[in-house]
């Protein structure tokens, strides 16, 4: 566990200890006719002394369940209570209760609960005895932490795969060439070498592009005409679209639609989205590009009727080199970096990229950028000049 987590937990244990001790004390006091402890029962508490512990517990981003020495529930903070009555809540309770029972015998324990959702979650429940009697369980959603871990480990494996495969192939092909005299074979092998060296070059180009986009902060703040961005992105993918007989249709761009940002990056991001849509469409399919200005948010939408993306991959496709289907990656010729570039461009512009996709029905990507405007005057770079 990281340092912040440890500190939070220590504070929680301390607060919970005081709270439960006081609670049990109060309870006993009432039952046996003793007066409640004076320090906490005073109604004229001066402002700025003890905080309200339940409020403190409620403000935590983790679930806390506290039971007294008899295993009866004393407190459940807001995070833990928000699931009550739902099937998630039922399963959380079923995990938490035995752990609390064990904690009452003085034993700390921890268990992980994997929920298939949707959305899929990994939740860690741990319990410990409290110093003043009773026990406490903490419930933490570890989904995001797990995802980040997976990103880190997969990245190394993926980058070595993407770079080593074409380079390894080049070496083998070159060796074949060395002893070869048949001009036909030489020709064929040389062609493969050209192909593989282009592949390696593309990966390196994209990596450099990504590095550039990641580094450049703040981005240029030009007024960028979206008509021009769409036109350039679409024309860039024309060769591959024609080759696969796919129609790229541009729909209703509001006249004078523009955003503040970096033109080159925006063209690169939209170009990647259109290229993906074309690549993953069935031959002679259709791809639609559309721009909407919603308040001051510009939405660039790219929709296809292609093979779609499995639900479990939706939150991972924006990672570098992540592949839904490794076996297909060579056919499509992509570098596995396109969507990372899109996400970084969106981040740089203070926007976001969203995906909705169903396998067998197609995907829609939406690039949402703040700072969108619609004006009737033809756009230019005039506004950004001093």
């Amino acid at each position, binding site marked *: 566990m990281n340092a912040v987590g440890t500190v939070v937990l220590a504070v929680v244990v301390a607060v919970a200890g005081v*709270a439960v001790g006081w*609670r049990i004390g*109060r*309870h006993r006091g009432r039952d046996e006719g003793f007066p409640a402890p004076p320090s*906490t*029962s005073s*109604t004229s508490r001066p402002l700025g002394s003890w905080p*309200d*512990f*339940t*409020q403190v517990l409620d403000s935590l981003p983790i679930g806390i369940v506290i039971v*007294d020495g008899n295993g*009866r529930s*004393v*407190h459940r903070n807001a995070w833990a209570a928000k699931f009550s*009555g*739902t*099937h*998630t809540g*039922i*399963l959380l309770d*079923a995990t938490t209760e035995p752990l609390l029972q064990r904690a009452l015998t003085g034993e700390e324990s921890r268990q992980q609960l994997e*929920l*298939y*959702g*949707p959305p*899929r979650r990994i939740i860690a429940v741990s319990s410990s005895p409290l110093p003043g009697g009773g026990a406490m369980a903490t419930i933490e959603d570890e989904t995001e932490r797990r995802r980040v871990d997976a990103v880190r480990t997969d990245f190394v494996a993926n980058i070595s795969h993407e770079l080593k495969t074409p380079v390894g192939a080049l070496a083998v092909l070159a060796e074949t060439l060395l002893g070869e005299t048949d001009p036909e074979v030489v020709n064929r092998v040389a062609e493969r070498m050209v192909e593989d060296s282009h592949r390696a070059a593309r990966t390196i180009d994209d990596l450099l592009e990504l590095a550039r986009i990641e580094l450049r902060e703040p981005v240029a703040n030009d007024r960028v005409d979206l008509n021009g961005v769409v036109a350039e992105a679409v024309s860039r993918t024309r060769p591959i679209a024609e080759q696969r007989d796919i129609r790229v249709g541009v729909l209703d761009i509001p006249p004078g639609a523009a955003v503040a940002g970096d033109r080159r990056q925006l063209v690169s991001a939209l170009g990647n989205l259109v290229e993906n849509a074309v690549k993953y469409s069935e031959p002679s399919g259709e791809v639609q590009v559309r721009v909407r200005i919603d308040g001051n948010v510009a939405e660039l939408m790219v929709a296809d009727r292609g*093979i*779609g993306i*499995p*639900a*479990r991959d939706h939150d991972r496709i924006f990672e570098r080199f992540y592949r839904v289907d490794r076996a297909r990656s060579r056919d499509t010729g992509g570098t596995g970096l396109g969507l990372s570039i899109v996400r970084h461009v969106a981040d740089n512009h203070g926007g976001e990229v969203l995906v909705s996709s*169903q*396998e*067998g*029905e197609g995907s829609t990507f939406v690039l949402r950028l703040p700072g969108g405007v619609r004006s009737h005057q033809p756009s230019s770079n005039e506004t950004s000049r001093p």
Partner: protein
Amino acid sequence: MSSDTELHVPEEEAHGDLRRGFHHELDDIRDDIAKLGAIVTENIPRATDILLNQDLDGAEKLIVGDDEIDVAALALEERCYSLIALQAPVASDLRKVVAAMRIIAEVERSADLTKNLCKAARRIYGHPLNPAIRGIIQKMGDQATTLFKEATESYLAGDATRAAAIDDMDSYLDDLQREFMRTIFESHEAAKSSIDLQVAVQLAVVARFFERIGDHAVNIGERTQYLVTGLVRESLGAARHASRQAAGESE
């Protein structure tokens, strides 16, 4: 003021009533059935995932885990029998016990169906499924999960209104099943990406499993309505049957 206003410690010791224990047991049985329902609710997306990713390990685990659900269901049924034998419940109490027994059976059967999904996953192992088929399997899994979640939660809350909505949600699952059948035929006939007959038959059975899970969720919803309102929804089916008979059509 201070925080103690919302923190009530139950004081059941104060009541000397014997029926108290009975009602406690009734609530406990309901909570335990809901727990079983929640486990099955999780098993549906789990089985869908296993099916889509040809996860043989996961399939094995789920199939073995089903025995535990059977044991729990049997134990719950026993507890219902004991309640009837020892407490002779009447009126709404009797309805609760009877509804519980019916719902246990529905939950147990649904758990078996998720197990069957995993067995189907084993049989189609090694045969890649095309995106159209995968997409509909995912949608059927999502919808069956939603239905079962609604059924479990409305039973736990005793919410007849929510339970009544499950029937409407089921018609979407039925539509998906029909769409899936159509897609299987198309994929089987298509010259290029055809699936062989064996896989096609397995997939048809898979669609049936999802559809049946939806039906069990609807039944739980109807039982929940019955225990809250005392009305049996099947009387509607009986009425429909009578009118069909009158119209001279039969199925």
